[in-house]
């Protein structure tokens, strides 16, 4: 797998026309493995070109960075970064917004289901232990 991607250096954001506010060392290819599957799923070759994967990773990281910074700008008025601010930013992109709200509500449902399961499991365990003692 080539590490000499067509994209820019690993320390700066791809194609950014502004200096980044948080400079951090980002490892190359953090998302590479999953991105290969993702790109194939969305229509690329089963084995996407390494240069393409690297470029998509740079672009995706820049996308996330800019989105999150914008959300922070909104949220900073309230002093926090919240999901609501983030959802507000993507409000014009209906498919993304729908998908996010769907996943978030499922996530919540799952949390509740897990809570019930854990409390049931705890009760069962206690009954079992009481049985063992007698």
């Amino acid at each position: 797998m080539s590490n000499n991607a067509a994209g820019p250096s690993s320390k700066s954001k791809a194609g950014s026309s502004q200096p980044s506010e948080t400079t951090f060392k980002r490892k190359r290819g953090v998302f590479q493995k999953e991105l290969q599957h993702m790109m194939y799923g969305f229509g690329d070759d089963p084995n996407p070109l390494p240069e393409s994967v690297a470029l998509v990773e740079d672009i995706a990281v820049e996308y996330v960075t800019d989105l999150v910074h914008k959300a922070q700008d909104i949220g900073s008025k309230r002093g926090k970064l919240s999901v609501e601010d983030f959802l507000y930013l993507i409000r014009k992109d209906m498919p993304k917004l729908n998908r996010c709200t769907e996943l978030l509500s499922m996530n919540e449902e799952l949390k509740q289901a897990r809570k019930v399961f854990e409390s049931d499991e705890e009760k069962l365990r206690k009954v079992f232990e009481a049985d063992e003692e007698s």
Partner: protein
Amino acid sequence: MDPFEVAFEDVEDLSPDSPTDDPVHVENQFLTPTNSLTSPALAASTGTNASTGNNEDEDEEEEEDNVDVNIRNIAFRRDPNKLAKTRAMLSQFTEAQTERYESFRRSRFKKADMKKLLLSITGMKTISEPMIVAVSATAKMFVGDIVETARMVMSERKDSGPIRPCHIREAYRRLKLEGKVPRRSVPRLFQ
């Protein structure tokens, strides 16, 4: 049971979601036969955590796979109509299409990796789970936008084979023009 097998075996469990939520769009994408598909070596890497080796991440990854199946079950309850349509579509897939669809469904940004990225971007000490969920979903769909647009660019140029960086750059440019890429506003220096 291997979550990968579970996903394959029971079509019912596949949640009827698509990036665009538009059945026609999804059909066009997946019913067009592709002729250059080799069998992808997915099984080996899906469901295993190869990036970081520590136990915490492995547990998280396993939990994510189980969560994935549970989430699909919950989604299944929501809209039987949409599910029926999806099942009809899936039943007509060739093996190659099914493999691609599975890749599409199962690929995701790893929670731990996304969390690290968000922590370094925001400079915060913690990131809430809903935030990670929302950002990961949005980022994945954005990758979808890029890849699909890149394929459109390729067909206009009558190119074939794997997507090349030049296609991706053109796709990115077009998405920016469409306003689908957030730009932080540059301060106006001269009015």
